């Protein structure tokens, strides 16, 4: 999937030279998990899912991975907005509380 | 050396810009008053049409 990569072993700048020049630096990565503030998370019932891709189209963050056999959600990036659950024509996506499995 | 000309500092600076060869010049010149009046006249005419007067 083509999306920003979370560099888990990123170290914040420790010297003058490491501070990004003009507050600009190489694109395409994140320095921390961009989903920590989520309170509800989507869960796809893959038995009912018909792979219509409406959730993939509507997701504002591009969190749904359609490259595999079933659709997968990237929970490191999903913000829990619930648009996918609202748009699914089969209503097979349910929003569950964050700490539930 | 060079060419001598009788210029205002505005024009001299403009020559400096030409010689420096920028790729893009962005500018907001002030709105010329006759143009401002013309636009006002056009909008008033349109308003009269709409109001049928």
């Amino acid at each position: 999937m083509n999306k920003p990569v979370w560099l888990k072993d990123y170290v914040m700048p420790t010297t003058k030279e490491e501070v990004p020049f003009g507050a600009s630096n190489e694109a395409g990565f994140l320095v921390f998990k961009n989903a920590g503030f989520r309170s509800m998370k989507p869960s796809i019932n893959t038995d009912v899912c018909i792979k219509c891709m409406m959730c993939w189209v509507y997701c504002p963050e591009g969190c749904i991975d359609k490259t595999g056999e079933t659709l997968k959600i990237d929970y490191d990036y999903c913000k829990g907005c619930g648009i996918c659950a609202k748009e699914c024509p089969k209503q097979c996506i349910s929003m569950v509380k964050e700490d539930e499995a | 050396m060079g060419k001598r000309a009788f210029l205002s500092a505005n024009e001299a600076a403009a020559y400096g810009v030409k010689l420096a060869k920028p790729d893009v010049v962005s500018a907001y010149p002030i709105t010329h008053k006759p143009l401002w009046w013309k636009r006002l006249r056009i909008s008033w005419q349109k308003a009269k049409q709409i109001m049928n007067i």
Partner: protein
Amino acid sequence: MVEKVADFLAEGEADYEYMMVESEHSAMAAALGVSMMGARAFTATSSQGLMYMAEMLNYTSGGRHPVVMVNANRALAIPWNIYGDHSDAMAMRDCGWIMLFAESGQEALDMVIQAYKIAEDKDVMLPVMVNVDGFTLTHTYDVVDIPEQELVDAYLPSFDTANKMCLEHPKTLCHSVGPDYYTEAKIAQQEAFEVAKAKIVACDEEFEAMFGRGYGGLIEEYCCDDAEYALVAMGGTVGTVRDVVDELRAAGEKVGLIKIRGFRPFPEEYFQSVKSKFKAMGVIDRSLCFGVGGTVFGEVKSALYGSEMGLKGFVLGLGGRDISVDMIKEMFAELKECPAGEYSDQPIFVGRRW
């Protein structure tokens, strides 16, 4: 002056892209966008326009994009005034731009060329504001030598930077940052200003070697070697003070002129080096820092910390009021009366009606 720049394009003498935008804020935003793509940008403005683009000035300097802008120094409203003084540039002195002041049309032309060389230097990478006195310089005529394009091309290399957006090396430009790293970014900008002090002088010396005209970098002294009283001036006023110094010198008085050409970065080292040289020093200000006094006076006074000279801050020429030869003679006369160690805590308005 952008009209003349447009004329060159219309007549086929130049081939830049000309973007006419809806406001000065957009003009600076457009110039910034151009610079972010690694291309060379230019814009020009004056007083209220400079105020309108104030937020974008900080964007450009913080993002370290080398835009060059000519600012025709014009008084700020209210009262609405179309004549020249320095209040617009002074209002923006903290925005992180290098600020240079031109004494004449010739210097303005040369300064624009030098500005690109200073700005685009890899150790500087700061935008440059070329200040030209509104009306007294921008709208009066003088003989100017226009250099050859080939010579300018030899002096000024093309713009090349890594701080830009490109598809081969994608970048995120102009992040937001929290309290944890903002200070360090600002320290980096401050250090670039210290580097710029030497670069401004070096670029000027190189210009002098190639074109035969030099301006002294940050500071120019005129008849200061044995002077007892000196006036500090900036912009077009310098030319008038030069004439007065010549006249007074011919009459046997030991007077001198200090021209500040580079206002940001401020040439503090120079003022520290002359803090015991004169009997008294006066500063001509064409702007007023309300509640404090003359703007340049405040900076000169702080740069002269530890000095025991007499210091006087004169404010004149506001809103385009003429700075006459008599006023300058009056200022030199006042300096002669100034005892050592005294400084004016209130601005002295020269040429006031009442």
